[in-house]
């Protein structure tokens, strides 16, 4: 099976030993330093992802160019390299038989599922999730599974037909054609096929003449005229430098310094919770009962011991989730009781329900959620603030299955969990992430212990007025502070130094630290 091959999947700058690893290598997700905000204060995405299409003959050096671009970009946000190979059509039984006999023309544009290719790319460009089909070269067939992708700031697609279809071309911000002499491409092919796939020179040449060369002449080479830049297939360092300079400039223009703006904008909002009544209809503050006040007193008390803190956080989390659950829709249902009487009551009227916890302080609320919905799926997001700029960075997205696919996400209800809303920077990013996945704004219920009245909650509510926020307390202040030797390691953190933080006052201190450490 490993000897099976198609012309256009050969070229890579490293030797390949199996087609599977070859395939997985061509679709690459490269993470670097987290994703800065991609949206404005109005909650809407500021810009699309930057999309680059790279076409060129088979073995011309497309993948090499793509990798060189990524390499020379250096410290960049998330990049996806997408290979055209993923988008081969689902084949009929006859086509599969032909393919096994090396008599199926994989170099023809018709072999590619262009509508799906364009749809996936359009999703990614619009900062939405997508599910890329997985094609097995061993089975010559598209598999039932799909690969979930979300959150790339730069997308590079490469393939011989990358510039062929107008729908694809309209999505690119930059179109690249890798130009290489035919004899050089053939030489590379023969060398690689014979050495790595154990094929005969005759066989390689036959396939080249039957499929590869005609496809190149008829479909690939003509697309060069669509390219913004034609890059030589070898000795192309200067061209790659030009390209990366262009991309960097584009990205810088798109970047925003976001967090400070949110805080300064938010002062002077008008929550009124003295009587426990929410002012904004979607900000729900729990009734300030004696028990609730007592619990908050224990949690706020710096002298409370760890056991008490954990116990009362868990108790409060469970209660908050119960209250948040009241905002889910219900429909009538009739049941029969054990003594044989029909009784009309209600049942939850939701298709999918899940939790998404913002690491780490969302953790205690996760426990509360599980006490209320024992089998609920719970995803997580990691948002950290950049130590230098204070900007939030999205470092990790792991969402439940019902959010990964758009058609499920539009019906899903999500409990978004975080211990407090101070600057609201991470809440903002988390909500934007859910909306990007197709979740409806009024299907998001943000559950939190504490909100800073003068913090970012106003901006958050202005941007996402339909998101419900359920909290147990609203505090007065938010102030900037400097934590010395903040012991946290990870992206965006400079080790051993202090760290600028925003503190809710009077607050509960660092809730995550008090609960976990």
């Amino acid at each position, binding site marked *: 099976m490993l000897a099976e091959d198609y012309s256009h999947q050969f070229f890579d700058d490293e030797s390949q030993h199996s087609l599977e690893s070859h395939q997985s290598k061509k679709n690459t997700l490269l993470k670097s330093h987290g994703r800065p905000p991609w949206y404005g204060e109005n909650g809407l995405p500021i810009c699309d992802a930057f999309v680059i299409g790279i076409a060129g003959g088979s073995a011309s050096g497309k993948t090499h160019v793509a990798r060189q671009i990524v390499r020379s970009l250096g410290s960049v946000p998330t990049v996806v390299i997408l290979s055209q190979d993923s988008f081969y059509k689902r084949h009929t039984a006859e086509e599969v038989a032909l393919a096994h006999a090396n008599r199926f023309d994989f170099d023809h544009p018709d072999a590619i599922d262009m509508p799906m290719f364009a749809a996936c790319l359009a999703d990614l460009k619009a900062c939405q999730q997508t599910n890329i089909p997985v094609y097995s070269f061993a089975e010559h067939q598209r598999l039932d599974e799909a690969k979930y992708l979300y959150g790339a700031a730069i997308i590079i697609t490469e393939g011989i037909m990358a510039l062929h279809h107008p729908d694809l071309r309209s999505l690119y911000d930059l179109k690249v054609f890798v130009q290489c002499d035919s004899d050089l491409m053939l030489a590379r092919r023969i060398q690689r096929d014979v050495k790595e796939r154990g094929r005969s020179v005759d066989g390689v040449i036959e396939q080249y003449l039957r499929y590869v060369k005609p496809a190149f002449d008829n479909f690939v080479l003509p697309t060069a005229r669509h390219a913004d830049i034609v890059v030589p297939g070898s000795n192309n360092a200067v061209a790659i430098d030009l390209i990366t300079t262009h991309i960097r400039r584009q990205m810088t223009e798109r970047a925003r310094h976001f967090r400070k703006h949110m805080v300064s904008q938010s002062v002077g909002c008008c929550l009124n919770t003295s009587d426990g009544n929410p002012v904004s209809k979607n900000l729900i503050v729990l009734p300030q009962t004696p028990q609730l006040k007592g619990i908050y007193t224990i949690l706020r008390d710096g002298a409370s011991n760890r056991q008490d803190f954990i116990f009362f956080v868990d108790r409060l989390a469970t209660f908050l989730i119960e209250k948040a659950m009241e905002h889910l829709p219900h429909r009538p249902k009739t049941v029969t*009781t054990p003594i044989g009487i029909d009784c009309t009551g209600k049942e939850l009227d939701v298709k999918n329900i899940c939790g998404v916890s913002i690491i780490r302080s969302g953790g205690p609320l996760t426990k509360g959620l599980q006490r209320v919905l024992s089998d609920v799926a719970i995803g997580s997001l990691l948002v950290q603030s950049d130590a230098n700029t204070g900007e939030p960075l999205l470092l990790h997205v792991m969402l439940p299955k019902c959010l990964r696919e758009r058609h499920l996400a539009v019906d899903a209800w999500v409990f978004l969990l975080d211990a407090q809303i101070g600057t609201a920077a991470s809440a903002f990013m988390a909500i934007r992430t859910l909306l990007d996945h197709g979740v409806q704004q009024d299907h998001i219920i943000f559950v939190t212990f504490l909100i800073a009245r003068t913090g970012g909650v106003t901006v958050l509510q202005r941007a996402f007025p339909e998101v419900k926020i359920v909290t147990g307390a609203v505090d007065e202040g938010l102030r900037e502070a400097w934590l010395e030797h903040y012991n946290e390691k990870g992206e965006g953190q400079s080790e051993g130094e202090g760290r600028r933080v925003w503190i809710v006052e009077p607050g509960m201190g660092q809730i995550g630290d008090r609960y976990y450490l």
Partner: protein
Amino acid sequence: MAASTAPTSQTHPASLPPSVFTLPQTAQLEALYTIIRDRTTSRGDFLFYSDRIIRLLVEESLNHLPVVPKIVQTPTGATYQGVGFEGKICGVSILRAGEAMEAGLREVCRSVRIGKILIQRDEETALPKLFYSKLPEDIASRYVLLLDPMLATGGSAMKAVEVLQEQGVPEERIIFINLIAAPEGLKRFCGRFPSLRVITGWIDQCLNEKSYIIPGLGDFGERRYCE
């Protein structure tokens, strides 16, 4: 003093005695009751969903306990004008169904002391009779959360309160926590002990000729422990 602060969930209709407090009658609460009333509900689900209601009942009942002002210093150095819990509490479950509420009680009130009372119908007199009781020694100085999931005629609940009173617990320091109550039983019970507070989750239609609560949920203890 703060015990007099009106608990927020008070939604009792005019016909109810003033000492009866129900949970907010939300769609979600109704949905929980629908699950536990359904005879096709598995024992596991019955346990899980009845525990959710019990936790809410306990949370609500604790609002009837006194608190005192308390000022604390937060880890950020700010001061906070809060409240502290005042007075000791204990639970007392009326066996056997009341025992089912103990886990929920302890989820909210960690390591709370729990006494037990077993009351059964005397077959000869048809009156409730005390078979067994084991209570904390200092119960007279505590607030008592009396646990019984179903209040039908109110007979055993009244007997249990008598037992507590014999131990020196004043009526006003007893809070009766209950999942489903029949209006007839509530009226009798509260008429007899007007200063005792009743926290109930749902008030059903009536009792039938066999004194079963309608629509009810069957035998709570049976469904929780045996089915």
